């Protein structure tokens, strides 16, 4: 009987590692820099990293998130994708709250740990950022600051020793739709792809946000999280119409709107 190794050991080995930026990963960053990377960015990384290392090293310990079960599910799911050749994976959903960010984080963790790929997890849901907060990282600086030109891209990425980096959403200052609209033309996506082996983008949801689909269409692979019992079929169809290619789906379990008592009464 074949078994799938759950990533518990991986988590145990790597979970306690700190997210780091700056000099701790400077060599890696510089060595891994793709052609076209600006020297100014590299200098920015170095200088910013010096400031961030001490501050974040103690505060960004991630030991239990994403949950092991989710990581295991994503590990199995990734075997159906060409994970070793994958360059960018956009994780989105129809509505908010369907588990998009958790799946994105788990996918990034699996790509980094199981496949050994330098993986950059980018939080592009600027309207409702959750990843940085959930991983106890500072929410800023991030994508918003980069798009506004206030920070360099490489100065905002927190890298871990296991090859997993996080670029948080940053502070959109109430202008998330405008910033998201500027991303495709800003060259940020190309820079992101160039900064890691694979980019996992936590995209905005497709239906509420008009900017979700354009960003998703720029990803090599789109993973759609569908929450069973929650996602309306009509909304899902509208979401699919906005995508240039059919996405693959991860089906989230039932998360009913009914309170537990009513569920019990209805025998659900």
């Amino acid at each position, binding site marked *: *009987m*074949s078994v*799938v*190794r*759950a990533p*518990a*050991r991986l988590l145990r080995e790597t979970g306690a590692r700190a997210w780091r930026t700056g000099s701790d990963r400077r060599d890696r960053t510089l060595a891994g820099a793709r052609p076209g990377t600006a020297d100014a960015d590299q200098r920015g990384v170095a200088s910013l990293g010096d400031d961030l290392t001490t501050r974040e090293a103690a505060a960004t310990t991630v030991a239990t998130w994403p949950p092991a*079960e*989710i990581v*295991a*599910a*994503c*590990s*199995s*799911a990734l075997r*159906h*994708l060409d994970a070793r050749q994958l360059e960018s994976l956009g994780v989105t959903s129809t*509505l*908010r*709250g*369907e*588990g998009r960010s*958790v799946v994105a984080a788990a996918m990034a963790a699996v790509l980094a740990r199981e496949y050994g790929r330098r993986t950059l997890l980018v939080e592009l849901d600027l309207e*409702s950022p*959750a990843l940085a907060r959930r991983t106890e990282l500072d929410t800023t600086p991030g994508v918003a600051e980069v798009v506004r030109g206030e920070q360099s891209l490489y100065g905002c990425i927190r890298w871990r020793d296991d090859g997993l980096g996080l670029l948080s959403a940053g502070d959109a200052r109430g202008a998330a739709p405008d910033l998201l609209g500027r991303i495709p033309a800003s060259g940020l996506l190309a820079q992101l792809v160039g900064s890691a082996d694979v980019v996992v983008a936590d995209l905005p*949801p497709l239906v*509420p946000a008009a900017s979700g689909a354009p960003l998703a269409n720029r990803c090599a692979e789109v*993973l*759609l*999280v*569908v*929450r*069973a*019992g*929650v*996602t*309306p*079929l*009509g909304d*899902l*169809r509208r979401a*699919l119409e906005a995508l240039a290619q*059919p*996405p*693959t*789906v*991860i*089906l*989230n*379990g*039932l*998360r*009913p*709107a*009914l309170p537990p008592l*009513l*569920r019990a009464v*209805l*025998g*659900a």
Partner: protein
Amino acid sequence: MYQRPTASLSSDDATRGRNVNDEGDAVVSEEAIVDRGLSHTPRVRRGYAETLLRNKTAVTAPLLVCLAVSLALVLVLTKPSYQSTTSLWTDAALPNTSTIVAGANGTSPSANYQQVLNELLSTDTFLVSVAKRTPLAPEVTDPASPEGRAALAGLAKAFSATTPGPQILAVTAKQPTPELAVAVARAVGNELIAQVRARLVQRDQALLSLDRRLLADDQKAVNAAQQSLAAYVLLHPARVASQPDTATNQLTATLAAAQTQLASAQNQYDQDVATASQANDASVLSVFDAPSPPVATGRMKKLVFAAAGGLLAGLLLSTGVLYLLSLADPLVRSEADVKGLLALRVIGAVDELPRLSDPRSAP
């Protein structure tokens, strides 16, 4: 090519097919995961409840609209009505003993007059007489006209008579205005008394006329008997003086009988005259309570019925809306939905992802 989803995880190791290997790592049996599959049995009731909670406004709106419309229709289409009640005192007519003392053996006086009132209310004459005592008089100027007929029909339905006891007859009039309700209640009470008294007076007059005719006849009989006896005495004075014969005895008996009959008739006449003088006796039939202050009535009952009807209709409509919504905007509930309806590839599933935000808070 679509492949069957292979990941489905939960903390419940025993049921999810997960084990722990020698190194302490959690492992997941692929077979167990595959066997478990992803499809969910359709949960119809739960689905409706989900749809209801997600479309509260759309589902509850028909209920509220139907309720509002039904109440509005009642308020608009039904005019307010007012009722006033007058009470009449009734008792057994003389020379009978009052039912206050003797009790009502059999039908009580109030029930008798209730029956009389109901009979009178079925007649145009009585209704016209009632109407002429009220502001409705112009409407019954021509009772044969359609307007007059409609007014009389409406008036006939406006009354109800009850008997709280053997002596009291309560007559209630319902009219669209407070003033009219009082006027009609007063009018029907007075008209009933007037009609009853008028009929009784007519009856008494007819009876006295009959008594007089009988009295006159009896008087003639007496006179005739007296004349016969007198004539016989003139022709046969010796027989009558010495020893009355059979003929004399017969004539004398005839005269005595005629005189007795006359006395009886006279006595009956005297009694009927005495009874006739009681026709207007207020102790038999009179107004006891003047018409009560008008009370608005009728609408609340209609409103309650309308509300109940509106709620029922709204409930049916809401159920229909809920059903249509569940058809029009179903939820994705299973892998089969994703595969069959959307032709998408499902590469994995999880039971319950932790939520970083609430989907219902999303726009």
